[in-house]
């Protein structure tokens, strides 16, 4: 397997999640590094000599993070470096039955499916950092039935619950089940 310089840099940069300044200097350096090696050896195989661009980017990110050079805000349900995506072949009205999409430590990935699990998830059943749908579980869950740290919905169950029926430490709703601070509409 081999990549052209442009392909390699494109894939590599897609997996770099850093400030604009860091991204700019990383792109400059990696492009120039490839050019220098190709000047020495026109048949330089980027994949074999430098490694898989995704893995090289992951190593970059790990070391950048250790140097305090990463300044990205992510919503995530995975603490792993690597991202993961699964999309079932079965679809209903063109929407995948199951879509799992978690972005790893540095990326926020969106899952859209009948059953959706992701950093941000949108589905009939949605589970994620932020979940939107009919039945939702998440850090922030918004749905007909929402369960989460912050839950907003018809029936909301959570630390902070806002809904028609709100169950939570802080409950805001028409019918509140319990709550330390209560608001009634």
């Amino acid at each position, binding site marked *: 397997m081999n990549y052209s310089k442009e392909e390699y840099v494109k894939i590599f940069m897609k997996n770099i999640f850093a400030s604009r300044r860091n991204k700019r200097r990383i792109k400059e*350096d990696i492009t*120039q*590094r490839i050019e220098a090696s190709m*000047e020495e050896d026109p048949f330089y195989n980027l994949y074999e000599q430098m*490694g898989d661009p995704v893995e*090289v980017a*992951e190593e970059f990110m790990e*070391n*950048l993070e250790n140097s305090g*050079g990463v300044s990205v805000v992510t919503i995530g349900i995975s603490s792993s470096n690597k991202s993961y995506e699964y999309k079932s072949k079965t679809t209903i009205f063109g929407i995948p039955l199951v879509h799992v999409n978690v972005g790893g430590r540095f990326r926020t990935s969106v899952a859209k499916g009948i059953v959706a699990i992701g950093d941000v998830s949108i589905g009939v059943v949605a589970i994620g950092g932020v979940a939107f749908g009919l039945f939702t579980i998440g850090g922030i869950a918004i749905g007909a039935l929402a369960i989460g740290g912050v839950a907003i919905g018809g029936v909301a169950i959570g630390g902070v619950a806002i809904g028609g029926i709100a169950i939570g430490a802080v409950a805001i709703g028409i019918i509140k089940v319990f709550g330390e601070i209560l608001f009634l509409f």
Partner: protein
Amino acid sequence: MKKMEDFKKQFKKGVVELVILKLLDEKDQYGYAIMQKLNTRSGNNIELKDGTLYPILYRLEDHKYIESYWHTEEDSRSKPRKYYKITKGGKIRFSKMYSDYKDINDGIKKILRSSRGEENEL
């Protein structure tokens, strides 16, 4: 075997900043040249990958121990390259690190060469 690799990796992490500053103290260099020189001059014992070298260079640059500038070599058809240059602060940092490294190295040597008998004599 994996644990030994981890040991080497951790040990290398600790000293790689020192050897990069040493190379830049000798001459301004671009990233790929630093990587090649580290490999050849260490007898391939300190092989650095791109993902390790550049974040260290950025950290050194952010702390103002090194600076970067673009330069095209004269009489060369090659493209402009980003060179890294050690600063005054970097030279001070290098001297301090080198001195600390020698102290630690001496200490380790003493421990590894000493025997239990010597300890009992104390």
